[in-house]
């Protein structure tokens, strides 16, 4: 095994093209676990922690660009206003030590169905910017997850940044686990309101082979919300929303929970987060 440590993004792309057998590593919170437990023996590691270009975030024309090296701790502290759903989800990741190292891009690289960052990225309509020596590609978060722990990256590509629309509207995230830290979600859910175009975004975690949206639920809730009058949420509509979210899932029974529990939990999380988000929207408009 060897360690390749590019000092610039260009060097990283060249190394990735020349050595597709190297496993990219940033915070190491997934990669090192696999190595420590001998679950994975890559030919080598491509250490991305020395690449300065991806260590920062910026906002341009209403879009937040989160560099691949930005940690969950940074998202929590710096991006709570710009990407509230992602910031909420980031606060639930692992522990402070994990959040000091782990990155959103690393979450996308691992592409676990349980990745905490994924539901809010799906809900807000984020885009993953990937790059190789051949050029840059933008992949919608919705198209990025292609199978259990598989993503749309080509062997020569690296995740450069995550592009998150800054909506200025409420977003919520909720997650079920046995405690408030160090938990792989049993089920998780994110919702994002888009009042400007009267849309609702959703993201389901830990309840299907990949993180996924619930398109029917999105349409149903968008149609049921009183966008003009900002009136209260109809209880039957919010219940229906929960059912449609549960229907969109495809969970399995495993050590963390049964499929039936996950569906039930999702219906509850969806109804709850939609209510929080809508109430927040009503309050913000009123004040």
């Amino acid at each position: 095994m060897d360690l390749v440590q590019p000092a610039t993004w260009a060097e990283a792309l060249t190394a990735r093209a020349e050595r597709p057998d190297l496993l990219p590593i940033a915070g190491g919170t997934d990669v090192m676990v696999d190595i420590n437990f001998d679950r994975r023996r890559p030919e080598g590691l491509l250490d991305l922690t020395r690449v300065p270009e991806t260590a920062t975030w910026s906002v341009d024309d209403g879009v937040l660009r989160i560099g691949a090296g930005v940690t969950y701790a940074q998202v929590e502290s710096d991006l709570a206003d710009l990407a509230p759903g992602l910031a909420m989800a980031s606060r639930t990741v692992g522990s402070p030590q994990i959040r000091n190292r782990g990155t959103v891009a690393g979450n996308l690289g691992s592409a676990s169905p349980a990745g905490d960052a994924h539901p809010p990225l799906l809900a807000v309509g984020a885009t993953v910017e990937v790059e190789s020596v051949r050029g840059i590609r933008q992949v919608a978060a919705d198209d990025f997850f292609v199978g259990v722990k598989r993503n749309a990256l080509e062997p020569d590509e690296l995740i450069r940044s995550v592009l998150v629309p800054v909506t200025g509207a409420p977003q919520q995230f909720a997650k079920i686990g046995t405690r408030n830290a160090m938990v792989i979600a049993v089920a998780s859910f994110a919702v994002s309101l888009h009042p400007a175009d009267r849309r609702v975004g959703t993201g389901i975690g830990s309840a299907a082979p990949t993180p996924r949206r619930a398109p029917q639920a999105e349409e149903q809730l968008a149609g049921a919300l009183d966008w003009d009058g900002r009136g209260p949420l109809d209880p039957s509509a919010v219940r229906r929303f929960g059912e449609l979210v549960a229907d969109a899932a495809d969970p399995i029974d495993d050590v963390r929970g049964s499929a039936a529990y996950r569906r039930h939990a999702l219906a509850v999380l969806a109804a709850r987060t939609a209510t929080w988000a809508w109430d927040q929207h009503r309050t913000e408009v009123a004040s």
Partner: protein
Amino acid sequence: MRVRCTVNGEERVADDVWAGESLLYVLRERLGLPGSKNACEQGECGSCTVYLDGVPVCACLVAAGQVEGRTVVTVEGLADGDLLHPVQQAFLDAGAVQCGFCTPGLVVAVHDLLQRHPRPSDPDVREALAGNLCRCTGYEKILEAVRLAALRAGGDR
């Protein structure tokens, strides 16, 4: 490969490091610093918590080569010779040390917390220590140790 870094204020060199090796292994097995404990090896327990460039991390999840040229502070680096750091003394005085295996990681995590937050509330403490497991104390004595350390550092609560 060779890894050079600053550990507890000293320039250190580790040779024959395997690329998949963790910082924790380098500290314990190559640099003679067994304070950071090896328990879960998956970032769950926090007993290997060290500072990497001033930020607390699980040393078991840092690839050794990633610390090349960087600065590490372990629990061994907190005391002033034989004089324990106030956080360490508070752990002893409050009876927050039983088997002691989790203690080094907790001491580093509390050291960091009190630097950032000299008078933390109990929820702040619980949140800050969420990544450090202790199977002996039931955590109450650890919370007391944090309160004691904060008090002694001059914080009226």
